[in-house]
C-alpha cells in the first residue's frame, strides 16, 4: 500500500466511528472488502464461535508476530496489550481501542517503520477481522444493521414539543425554555445521537417539573384576578421630575386611572429625557445617548418610559400594546424597542429583558406592537415587586449604531454638540392589560380545553381533552383504553374536591411526562422492517422540523400513503418550504460549522473606539454583530436550499446573503434593513461558507495566530476527517513563542513547523497544518488583512496562502482551495458534495455512520452526482433509503 493510497482512506469524523468509517477507493476493494453485500453477508453468517476460531487460527498468530513485542506483557507501549484471547468487542471501551488499532494499521502507522511490515494479505486478514467484529458488535447493540437506537427527545426538542402542544409562544417575548432542562451532551453532530442521550432521575424530575409548570401556566384554574387595564397617552402628560436623569426637570409623567371604573388603583408613568412632538407623541432617543452614564442593562429612567402597575400575583399573562414608529436616518438600522421588567428600588435594582422588537414602520404610520409576558415562565424575583407593591416595566430605545462612530468631542467644560443622527422611536401610547383583563378564561386555556367543548359532562370533557393533548404530545393516534388511567386520576382529584379545571392539571402533567412524549417510540421487531406510517412521519418531521408531524403528515400516515416515494418527496418539499424548516437549517449548519463559538467565545472585537468611545456601547454592538455573523452561514444555506442549488455552491458562490450590519462589515454599500437578502459578492468573498467572517471567527477561536486551529477546523468540518486527539500538556503556539525568545524570531510557518515537528504530532499535523494557511490573509474576525508594510528598499510580498490537501493536491489561494473541494467530477473523499452527503445522512439518522452504512453512502453519492448534487435531491435520496424508512 503506497502512501497516497493510504491517505485517501478517510474518516467522516463522527462519534465513535470517526477513525473508522473510511471510504475505500475502488482500487483497494479487493484488499479491503468492506462495502457491498459481501460485507453484510459476512455479518449475517459469522457466528461468535466461528469468529473466535478465526481469531485463534489467523489473527492471534499475526498479532503475536508483529505486535506483542511492544504491546504485550513486557512493554505495553501506549498502554496497549494485544496478547491474550479474543477481545470482547461488545464492550464499547475495548471496541474503541480496536478501532484505533485498525486505523493505525490502515494508515500504515503501525507497525512502525523500523519494524518488519505486514504483508498485504496479513494486513487484510487483520483489518477485515477487526472491521467485521466491530461492525457486528455495534449492530448487535442497535438490534440490526443500519438501525438506529430509540432515543429520547433532546431538551430543545422536548421544550419545543411542550411549546407546540400548549401554545407557549408569546408575542415578541422569546422564552429560552429548553434552558430549564439539564444540558445534553454537546456533540458536533448529530446532537440527537440516541447512544449518547442518557436519562437519569434528574432528567425525569426536570422534565416532569417543566411539564407541570407549563401546564400550570396555561390552565387558568385559580379565581380570576382583578381585570384591570390602563391606557398611557403621551398627550396630556404633565411635566414631571423623573428620577435618575441628568438634566433635572426635563421629563413627563403622571398618574393614570384604570379603564375599568370599579378599579380604584391608579398606575403611574414617567418618561425621562425626551421630546414631545407636535402631534403629542414622544420621541425616544437611543438610550446610550439620553443617559451618558448608561450602564449596559441598568437602571435609570432616563430615555425611557417607566410604568408602575398595580402588583398582582405573578400568574397568567400581562399584555402590553405599544403604539410606535421609527425615524431612521440614511445608513442606519431600524431601532430596537426594548421592554424589560424593572425594579427601581435603590439597592434592589433589578432589570430583566423581556422583548426586543425592531420597529420597522415609519413614525408617520404608527403601528401597535403587542408584548405578551407570561409571568410564571419569565424568571424574575417577583418578591421584589411584591415588596414594592407594584410591577415596574421599562420601555426604551435600545438601538446601537451600525456605522462606526468615534467619540464626539467638544470644547472643554461645555456639553458636546452631538454630531450624529440616530434611529429614533416615536411612542404615541401604551396600553396595558393585567392577567385578569380581556376574555376569561384566557385564550390558551380555551385552546387547551377546546376539545372538550361539546362534551355532555365534566368527565366526558376531561376524556376529550386528554385524548386531544395526548395525541399531540405522543405524536400518534391513540387507543381508547390508553386514556383510562388518566381519567381515573382525574376522578380521584375530583373526589378530593378539586374543580373541573384544576383536576385536569396532574393528569395533563402525566401525559406530558409519559415515555410516549419523552421518547421517540418505534416498536421494532428483532429484524429490520419498514416503519409504520406514523413512525415514518415522525422520523421525517423530526429530521426537517425538529418536532412531531403536523396534521397533513399524520393524515397521509393514517391513510398509509406516506411511504410512497412520490408522496414522500412531495412532503419533503413541503416541509422544506415551511418556515419550520429553519430548525433543521439552523441546527445543522450551526453544528457543522460550530457557529455557537462566534457568539460564546470571548472574541475581542475591539469596537470601543468605533463606538462613541464607550465600552458599553461597544459591548452591545458586538453582541449584535456576533449574532449576525453566526447567522449568515445558515441564511446562506437556507437560500441555497430554497433554490435547490448544488452542494458545492455552498463553498463557491457569487452571491452573499447578508443584512445591513454585515454589509457594513464587509464594506458593501446599498443594503438597508436587518432582513437577510441575496446580494452580489465582492471579489474576496466568493467562496461561500469559506469566505464568511463568522466561519473564520469560529475556526480561529479568537486567536490571532490561528493556523493550527483553522487547519483542525477545516479538516474536521469541511473535509470531513477527524483530526485526531492531541496529547495533553502541549502548550499553545503563542505560549511557546512567548516563553522562547528564539521562536519569536521565526515566521508563523516556521513556528508551526517547529510546534509539530515531533514524530507523534506530525502524524496528524501533516494533514492539519497545510490547510490552515488558506486563510492567512484574513484575521480572526474574518476581515481582510493587508500584507505587512514593505521594509526599506524591498517591495511588499503578498501574503502566502498556499497549502495542500491531505491527498497531496496543492492550492495557492482560498479560491483554488474551494475549487479543489468543490470539484464535482473527480472522486475524492474530500469532495465537498460527498462530505455533505455524509453529514446530512448522519444528521437524518440521528447517529454516527459506521461501516455498515458505506454501501448506502456509496449509492447516495452516486445518486447525488446524477442529480447534479442538488441539495433537495440529496435530502430526498436520504429519506427514501431503507435505512431511513426501516426500523
Amino acid at each position, binding site marked *: 500500500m503506497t502512501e497516497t493510497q493510504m491517505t485517501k482512506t478517510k474518516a467522516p469524523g463522527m*462519534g465513535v466511528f470517526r477513525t473508522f468509517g473510511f471510504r475505500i477507493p475502488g482500487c483497494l476493494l479487493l484488499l479491503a472488502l468492506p462495502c457491498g453485500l459481501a460485507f453484510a453477508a459476512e455479518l449475517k453468517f459469522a457466528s461468535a464461535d466461528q469468529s473466535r476460531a478465526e481469531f485463534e487460527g489467523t489473527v492471534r498468530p499475526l498479532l503475536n508476530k508483529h505486535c506483542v513485542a511492544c504491546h504485550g506483557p513486557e512493554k505495553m507501549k501506549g498502554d496497549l496489550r494485544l496478547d491474550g484471547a479474543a477481545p470482547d468487542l461488545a464492550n464499547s471501551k475495548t471496541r*474503541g481501542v480496536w478501532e484505533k488499532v485498525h486505523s493505525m494499521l490502515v494508515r500504515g502507522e503501525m507497525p512502525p517503520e523500523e519494524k518488519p511490515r505486514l504483508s498485504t494479505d496479513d494486513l487484510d486478514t487483520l483489518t477485515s477481522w477487526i472491521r467485521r467484529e466491530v461492525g457486528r458488535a455495534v449492530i448487535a*447493540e*442497535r*438490534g440490526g444493521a443500519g*438501525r438506529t*437506537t*430509540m432515543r429520547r427527545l433532546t431538551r430543545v426538542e422536548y421544550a419545543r414539543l411542550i411549546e407546540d402542544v400548549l401554545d407557549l409562544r408569546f408575542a415578541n417575548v422569546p422564552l429560552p425554555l429548553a434552558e430549564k432542562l*439539564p*444540558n*445534553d*451532551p*454537546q*456533540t458536533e453532530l448529530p446532537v440527537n445521537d*440516541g447512544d*449518547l442521550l*442518557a*436519562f*437519569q*432521575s*434528574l*432528567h*425525569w*424530575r426536570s422534565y*416532569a*417539573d417543566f411539564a*407541570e409548570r407549563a401546564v400550570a401556566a396555561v390552565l387558568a384554574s385559580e379565581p380570576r384576578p382583578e381585570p384591570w387595564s390602563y391606557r398611557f397617552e403621551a398627550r396630556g402628560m404633565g411635566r414631571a421630575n423623573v428620577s435618575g436623569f441628568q438634566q433635572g426637570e426635563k421629563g413627563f409623567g403622571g398618574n393614570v386611572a384604570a379603564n375599568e371604573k370599579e378599579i380604584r388603583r391608579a398606575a403611574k408613568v414617567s418618561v425621562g429625557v425626551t421630546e414631545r412632538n407636535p402631534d403629542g407623541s414622544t420621541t425616544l432617543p437611543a438610550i446610550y445617548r439620553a443617559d451618558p452614564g448608561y450602564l*449596559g442593562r441598568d437602571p435609570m429612567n432616563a430615555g425611557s418610559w417607566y410604568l408602575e402597575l398595580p402588583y398582582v400575583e405573578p400568574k397568567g399573562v400581562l399584555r402590553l400594546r405599544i403604539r410606535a414608529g421609527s425615524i431612521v436616518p440614511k445608513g442606519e438600522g431600524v431601532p430596537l424597542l426594548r421592554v424589560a421588567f424593572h425594579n427601581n428600588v435603590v439597592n434592589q435594582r433589578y432589570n430583566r429583558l423581556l422583548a426586543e422588537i425592531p420597529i420597522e414602520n415609519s413614525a408617520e404610520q404608527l403601528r401597535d406592537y403587542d408584548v405578551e409576558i407570561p409571568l410564571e415562565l419569565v*424568571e424574575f*424575583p417577583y*418578591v421584589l415587586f411584591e415588596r414594592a407593591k407594584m410591577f415596574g416595566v421599562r420601555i426604551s430605545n435600545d438601538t446601537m449604531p451600525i456605522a462606526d462612530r468615534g467619540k464626539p468631542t467638544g470644547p472643554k467644560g461645555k456639553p458636546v454638540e452631538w454630531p450624529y443622527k440616530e434611529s429614533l422611536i416615536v411612542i404615541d401610547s401604551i396600553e396595558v392589560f393585567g392577567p385578569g383583563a380581556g376574555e376569561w378564561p384566557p385564550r390558551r386555556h380555551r385552546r387547551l380545553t377546546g376539545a372538550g367543548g361539546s362534551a355532555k359532562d365534566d368527565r366526558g370533557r376531561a376524556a376529550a381533552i386528554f385524548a386531544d393533548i395526548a395525541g399531540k404530545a405522543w405524536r400518534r393516534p391513540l387507543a381508547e383504553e390508553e386514556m383510562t*388511567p*388518566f381519567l381515573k*386520576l382525574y376522578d*380521584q382529584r375530583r373526589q378530593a374536591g378539586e374543580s373541573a379545571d384544576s383536576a385536569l392539571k*396532574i*393528569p395533563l*402533567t*402525566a401525559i406530558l*411526562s*409519559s*415515555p*410516549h412524549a419523552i*421518547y421517540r*417510540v418505534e*416498536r*421494532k*421487531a*428483532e429484524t429490520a422492517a419498514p416503519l409504520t406510517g406514523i413512525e415514518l412521519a415522525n422520523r421525517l418531521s423530526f429530521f426537517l422540523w425538529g418536532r412531531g408531524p403536523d396534521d397533513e403528515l399524520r393524515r397521509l400516515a393514517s391513510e398509509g400513503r406516506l411511504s410512497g416515494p412520490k408522496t414522500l418527496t412531495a412532503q419533503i418539499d413541503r416541509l422544506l418550504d415551511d418556515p419550520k424548516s429553519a430548525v433543521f437549517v439552523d441546527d445543522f449548519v450551526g453544528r457543522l460549522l460550530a457557529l455557537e463559538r462566534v457568539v*460564546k*467565545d*470571548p472574541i475581542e472585537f475591539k469596537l470601543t473606539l468605533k463606538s462613541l468611545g464607550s465600552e458599553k456601547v461597544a459591548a452591545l454592538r458586538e453582541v449584535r454583530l456576533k449574532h449576525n455573523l453566526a447567522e449568515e452561514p445558515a441564511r446562506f444555506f437556507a437560500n441555497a436550499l430554497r433554490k435547490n442549488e448544488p452542494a458545492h455552491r455552498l463553498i463557491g458562490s457569487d452571491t452573499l446573503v447578508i443584512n445591513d450590519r454585515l454589509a457594513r462589515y464587509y464594506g458593501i454599500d446599498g443594503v438597508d434593513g436587518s432582513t437577510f437578502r441575496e446580494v452580489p459578492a465582492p471579489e474576496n468573498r466568493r467562496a461561500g461558507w469559506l469566505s464568511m467572517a463568522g466561519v473564520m471567527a469560529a475556526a480561529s477561536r479568537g486567536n490571532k495566530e490561528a493556523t493550527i486551529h483553522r487547519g483542525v477546523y477545516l479538516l474536521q468540518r469541511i473535509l470531513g476527517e477527524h483530526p485526531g*486527539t492531541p496529547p*495533553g*500538556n*502541549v*502548550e499553545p503556539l503563542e*505560549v511557546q513563542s*512567548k*516563553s522562547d525568545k528564539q521562536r519569536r524570531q521565526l515566521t508563523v510557518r516556521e513556528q508551526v513547523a517547529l510546534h509539530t515537528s515531533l514524530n507523534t504530532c506530525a502524524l496528524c499535523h501533516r494533514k492539519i497544518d497545510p490547510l490552515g494557511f488558506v486563510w492567512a490573509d484574513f484575521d480572526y474576525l474574518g476581515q481582510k488583512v493587508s500584507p505587512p508594510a514593505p521594509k526599506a528598499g524591498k517591495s511588499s510580498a503578498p501574503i502566502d496562502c498556499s497549502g495542500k490537501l491531505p491527498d497531496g493536491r496543492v492550492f495557492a489561494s482560498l479560491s483554488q482551495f474551494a475549487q479543489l473541494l468543490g470539484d464535482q467530477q473527480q472522486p475524492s473523499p474530500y469532495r465537498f458534495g460527498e462530505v455533505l452527503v455524509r453529514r446530512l445522512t448522519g444528521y437524518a439518522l440521528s447517529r454516527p455512520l459506521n461501516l455498515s452504512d458505506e454501501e448506502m453512502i456509496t449509492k447516495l453519492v452516486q445518486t447525488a452526482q446524477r442529480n447534479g448534487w442538488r441539495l433537495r435531491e440529496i435530502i430526498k435520496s436520504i429519506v427514501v433509503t431503507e435505512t431511513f424508512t426501516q426500523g
Partner: protein
Amino acid sequence: MLNRRNFLKAAGVCLPLPWLETLATAAEAKAGSSPGRAVFFMVPSGVNMWRWHPKEFGPSYQLSSTLQALAPLRKELTIFSGLEHAKGAGGGHYEVGVWLTGNEKYKSKDGPVEPNTISIDQHIARSIGHRTRIPSLVLSAPGGSVTTSFAAAGAPVSAENNLRRLFGELFGSPDVMARLQNRSSVLDIVGEQARGLSKQLSRSDRNRFDDYLQSVRDVESRLQGDREYFASRPLPISANELPLDSDPQAQRQEYFRTMLDLVALALRNDQTRIVSILACGSGHEFFGQWPEFANDTHHRASHATNYDPEEQRPRDYALLENVDKWFVAHLARFLQTLNDTREGDSTLLANTMVLYGGGMSWTHNPSNLPMLLAGGSRLGLKHGSHLRFNPHKNLKGQLDKGVKPDETTVCDVLRTMSERLGVPAERFGDSRRVVRDLLVG
C-alpha cells in the same frame, strides 16, 4: 425579616436534627462517634499564581495574601504545593472532568463525549451513600452535565444548580409536600405505561429504555423516603426568606452564600455526607464573566497572563486575584460555619474534610495546582502545614513534564480522603499511596 447571615443559626434552632436522631446507623449510634463527611469544592480556570501559594513550607509558613481570609482557621487546614495529576492529566479545560477522577485519558472539554471514569465523590457515595437520605449532593453553578462528578459508567452525574429545588429537596415545604403527592400520582401512571411499553420494544431499544424505567424507580423511591422524612419534621425556614432565585452570575454573592449555607445545613443534619460543588465552567462558557469586576472574564485574564511577571500584567493578575479572593472568602465563611457548629464533643468541621481548589494553575497548565484541604481532624487528619510535593519543579511547574514516579499526586490526596471515610480507594486514578504527611502519627 430574618437576616440572611443568621440563616444557618436560625435554621439550626428550628431544626434540631442531630444526626443521631435521624438516619445514623445503629452501629454509629452505639459507638457515639460522628459520621465523617467530605466536600469537594472546585474553582476552575486558573489563579494568580504569584499570590496563591505561601512562600514558606512546613508548619511555620505565612499565609499568602490570597488565602488571608483563612487566617482564623490556619490550624484546621493544609495547603499543597506541587500537587498535580500523574502524566499531566487535565491539561487545559479538561480540568473539570479530571479533578476528581484523575483520568489522564479524559479529553472532552465540550462535554461528555467519551466516557470518563468514576469520580472520588461517587466512589465514596457508592459505598456509604445509602447511609443518608441523599447519597451525594452534586452541585454546580452551570448545572446539568457541567460537573466534577462522574458515575461508575463514566457519565457525568447531572448537577443541580437551582437553589429553590435544592432547598425543597433538603427541607421540603408545603409546596413540596403537595407536589410529592402529585408527583407520585404521575409516577404511578407513567411507570405503569413504561413497563407496558418496554415489553413491546426490541431488545436493543429495551436496554436503552431501561434508563427511563430506572429513573422512574429512582424518583419513586426517593419520593417515598422524602415524604416520610418531611412528614416528621417542621420547616427550618420559609423559602421566601432566602434569595433562592439568585442568578449564579448576576447575583453570584447571594447565590454562593445561600448554596454553601444549604450545604452546611445538609451536612449538619446528616442529610448527606458527600458533596461536590463546581463554581463555574472551565473557560468562558459558564459564568466566567464577572460583573462585579468591570465585567471582565476570568478565562481571558487567565489566558493573558502566561507566565509573565505580575507587574507586566497588572490588570489581568488583579482580576485573577480578585476572583481568587472572592471564592476564598466564601470558603472561609463556609469553613467557619462548620467550625462554629458543635457536634458531640467536637465540631462539624472536625468531621468534615473540605478539599478546595482548581485543576489549572498558570495559563491552562495542570501543574502545581492551587489546592488546599481543610477540616477532618477527628477523622485522623493532621493540619497546619504547607506541604510541598514535586520539589524538583519551580513555581512555574516548568522544569519537568509529569510527576516523578515517587511523587504524590492529586489522586493520592483523594484516596487519603476516601480511606478516612472508611472507603478503600487503592489505585484510584493514578494513586499509588496514602499521603502520610496528612495523617496523625
